């Protein structure tokens, strides 16, 4: 299998070339194009329960598996967000991925939903994480660019900016300051990481974009 991320960093796309029998799994809707010799199969990966959890995680219930029936077959994928993509090689380790950031995976890598705690859910920013584990490749997408930070000790990232992190880290979701700053500063909830491992965060956030666009939307409604 050969793979390449092109058009970095603004509108990154993933291009995979498969040999006969090789396969790649991708999020529903991520496919841009594929060779005629690729077979697409739709399934609830991991069974009904895993699929239902994935739906809660903001991902689709159904994942598509693309299998090459001949050598040199190509698949092209893209996330829905304007931004970058990242390839994470997996060697039996576990990476947590924020909802909506999963694009594709290969090998034995599985993606299972994990509940991020009631606090983040009620804040509407749903820190739903997908637990990705196995051997092979994992590709994720971001809104904006992707920054990587190696946590040694503790580190704080806004919930809406978290893209993923190593499972070796422990985390808690909390307010950024006291009650006053919760209401008065626009900063909402943050994730505090501790331990040793990598954190990936995106340089833009979807709720901020929606908040910025909202007034323009109301103007349109009045017309």
């Amino acid at each position, binding site marked *: 299998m050969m793979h390449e991320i*092109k*058009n970095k960093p*603004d*509108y*990154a*796309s993933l*291009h995979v070339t498969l040999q006969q029998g090789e396969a790649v799994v991708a999020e*529903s*809707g991520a*496919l*841009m*194009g*594929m*060779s*005629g*010799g*690729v*077979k*697409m*199969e*739709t399934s609830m990966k991991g069974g009904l329960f895993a699929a239902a959890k994935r739906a809660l995680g903001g991902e*689709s219930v*159904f994942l*598509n598996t693309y299998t090459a029936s001949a050598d040199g077959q190509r698949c*092209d994928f*893209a996330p*829905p*967000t*304007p931004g970058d993509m990242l390839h994470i090689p997996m060697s039996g380790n576990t990476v947590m991925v924020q909802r*909506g950031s999963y694009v594709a995976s290969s090998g034995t890598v599985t993606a299972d939903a994990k509940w991020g705690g009631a606090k983040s859910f009620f804040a*509407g920013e749903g820190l739903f994480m997908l637990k990705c584990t196995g051997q092979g490749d994992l590709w994720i997408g971001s809104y904006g660019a992707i920054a990587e930070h190696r946590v040694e000790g503790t580190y704080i990232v806004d919930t809406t900016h978290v893209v993923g992190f190593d499972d070796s880290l422990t985390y808690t979701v909390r307010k950024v300051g006291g009650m006053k700053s919760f209401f008065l500063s626009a900063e909402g909830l943050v994730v505090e990481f501790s331990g040793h491992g990598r954190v990936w965060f995106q340089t833009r956030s*979807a*709720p901020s*974009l*929606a908040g910025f*666009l*909202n007034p323009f*939307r109301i103007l349109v409604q009045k017309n």
Partner: protein
Amino acid sequence: MQIELEGRPSYPMATVKLAKGESIVVEGSSMLAMGPGLGVETTFNGAQGGGLVEWLTAAFVGLVRKFVAGETLFVNIFKARTEGATVMIAPALVGDILDIELDGTRKVTVQAGSFLASAPTVKQRLIWGGIAMLFSGEGAFFLECSGKGHLLINSYGAIEEVPIDGEYFIDDGHVVAWEGKLSYTRKSAGGLKATLLSGEGRLLRFKGQGKVWIQTRNLSSFIQWITPFFRG
């Protein structure tokens, strides 16, 4: 006519420098700046020929572009009264611009919504993508461009060139344009289950030899992604 692209691939602008008497056809509301010495005429795209039939066809194409392809009804024709008059143009969407030079033998078919500008010597023919395309949300119509001169097309996201020799499936929301001996059909890539549940039910199957330009983002996917974040 000289065309220079700056700011690729996300926020490009095309600077078009015209010789005296030359003109360029530009998608409505795509002019962002212009120098002196230019005359502007607004018309339906394709009505440059002047005949009644051309005008009626162009009016129909314009209406189709407006209401089906989400484009503007009119195009503006910028004509240079002086040597070296320049006009700067940019599309509404964030994404790339491609400058394709037609030499009289090439024939490029463009998703109606991706047309940005062309030399007046580029001929356009409206192609109806078939009844299935009407419900696809994007591009029920294509413009088959031939003739000689520059053709500018734009995309949402980057533009990726896909060479095709044989068979290739492309999501219709990602098709920008194609060229060559290619035929296409709307075809499901899997069985009934895949068609209904895969989220990839809108594939076009291209067959033959040629190339397809695809855009690396899809506007309807973007809207689906951002909509839940709006409150109220």
